[in-house]
């Protein structure tokens, strides 16, 4: 039999250290819904979603009861709608169908209102991107993402410039709701096709028809493990994080396989991402501080985060051969109590955050900026992040919220999205650079063929 201590350890992780399955996401291909008529396409999308995911929430709730592990979110993710709607042009109708289906199925977010334009944009893709602000303001649970760069293709600076404008417009259109539309919009470089986490999830074009991907979290568990090895050297630290990540990933794999079996779907990947929530004890910032920083943002933060991210990936890949998605540590400001504290105290600024994104698993995430920030400056922030991703061969993202009507203070998004202090972004501009548009060529190390 298992020993008493092992059982208590697992129970403590769940009960006291906020270990949970952050999301079970059903990825659904919509390529068989394409028609040349907008209403017919939207109808087929609605039918496919409501039929494939009919029992999704009840089955996942059953798994939660069976294993006694909280499964916080049940989500859907679909093929990029820029492709599904290209023949009919009915992007907005598809979005409304997605929103309706998701609400009826009790799903809290549905991802995939997405376009992949790192190399070039078709006329249809450009039209699609222009619908994003309206769609995000008129739907509640639809999430959108646009990939503007990749290590293989370089950076599409026309798309970068356009996304600066789209983010600004989305903020304007949702200004009565704290610009929440921008919290549902991610601009990526090197986007992954099997990411279960919102808002950047979509079902990549190389994925199967119906795939279950699982996102696991657990910053609290990692922090508790590090608390027990105070003062010990960095190799012990790395090993401890790895061991903890291993255990958490094994549990995620169990849930993923079980969900896929019961839902008659393919098991895709598990994504072990230390994803914080605004709760105390569920913070990546606090993990970094436990590693030995007086506050996140202090010198040494990038090194700590690099080690944390790498050790999490290593532990995860030892535990499962199906590790994918983003796997690493997320550093969203608004969703992490340690990060919020550091920004408010002045210990963490935009510059250090940008450095951190070169070693974390995603990028500038859930950051509130002054409402007067220009579209071109937002585009420049996107360009910087994309450059970090493209040159380093990693995923980077920008999910940034210009808070219309506010220049400083704090903005409240509620729930898992938390609250964000508005960050100072400096005075300079890159307007003339952004005006150039065009394409930043792929880096030399991408020519590996």
């Amino acid at each position, binding site marked *: *039999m*298992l020993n008493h201590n092992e059982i*208590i350890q697992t129970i403590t992780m769940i009960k006291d250290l906020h270990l949970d399955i952050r999301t079970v996401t059903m990825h659904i291909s919509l390529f068989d819904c394409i028609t040349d008529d907008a209403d017919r396409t939207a109808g087929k999308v609605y039918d496919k979603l409501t039929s494939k995911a009919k029992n999704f929430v009840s089955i996942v709730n059953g798994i939660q*009861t*069976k*294993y006694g*592990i909280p499964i916080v979110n049940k989500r859907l993710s679909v093929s990029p709608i820029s492709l599904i709607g290209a023949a009919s042009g009915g992007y907005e109708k598809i979005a409304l169908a997605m929103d309706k289906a998701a609400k009826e199925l009790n799903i809290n977010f549905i991802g995939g209102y997405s376009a992949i334009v790192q190399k070039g944009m078709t006329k249809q893709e450009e039209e699609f991107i222009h619908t994003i602000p309206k769609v995000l303001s008129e739907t509640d649970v639809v999430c959108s993402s646009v990939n503007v760069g990749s290590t293989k293709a370089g950076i599409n600076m026309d798309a970068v410039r356009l996304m600066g404008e789209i983010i600004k417009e989305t903020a304007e259109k949702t200004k009565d709701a704290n610009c929440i539309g921008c919290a549902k919009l991610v601009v990526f470089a090197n986007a992954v096709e099997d990411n279960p986490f919102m808002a950047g999830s979509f079902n990549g074009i190389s994925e199967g028809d119906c795939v279950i991907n699982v996102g696991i979290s657990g910053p609290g568990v990692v922090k508790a493990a590090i608390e027990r090895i105070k003062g010990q050297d960095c190799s012990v630290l790395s090993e401890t994080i790895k061991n903890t990540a291993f*255990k958490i990933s*094994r549990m995620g*794999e169990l849930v993923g396989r079980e969900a896929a079996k019961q839902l008659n779907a393919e098991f895709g990947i598990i994504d072990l991402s230390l994803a914080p929530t605004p709760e105390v004890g569920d913070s990546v910032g606090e993990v970094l501080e436990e590693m030995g920083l007086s506050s996140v943002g202090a010198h040494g933060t990038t090194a700590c985060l690099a080690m944390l991210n790498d050790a999490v990936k290593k532990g995860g890949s030892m535990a499962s051969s199906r590790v994918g998605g983003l796997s690493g540590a997320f550093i969203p400001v608004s969703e992490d109590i340690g990060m919020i504290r550091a920004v408010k105290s002045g210990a963490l600024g935009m510059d250090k955050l940008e450095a951190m994104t070169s070693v974390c698993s995603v990028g500038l995430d859930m950051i509130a900026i002054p409402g007067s920030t220009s579209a071109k400056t937002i585009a420049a922030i996107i360009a910087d992040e994309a450059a970090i991703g493209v040159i380093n061969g990693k995923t980077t993202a920008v999910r940034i919220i210009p808070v219309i009507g506010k220049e400083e203070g704090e903005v409240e998004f509620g729930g898992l999205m938390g609250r964000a202090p508005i960050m100072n972004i400096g005075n300079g501009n890159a307007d003339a650079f952004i005006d150039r548009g065009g394409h930043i060529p792929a880096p030399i190390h991408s020519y590996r063929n």
Partner: protein
Amino acid sequence: MRAIVSVLGKDTKGIIANVSMTLYKQDANIIDISQTVLQNEYFTMIMLVEIGEGKTIDDLSKALDVVAKEFKVEIRVQHEDIFNSMHRI
């Protein structure tokens, strides 16, 4: 189907008796049991049980909730695989 029943809380008279009786009424067979009381106060009991055919973890959980409320302890019923997956390769 085998499940782990864990009971955590302050030690009071009758916990083991009542948990065992509820398990018996739910047609669950206790295969293994281990129990400790830390510092004469904090009670933990772990049981490995075989759940009878036709019963589910949810049935057992709901029945044990009544005992948990009466004795002011936390009782969880979890499929044993979650522990095996985490601690055994």
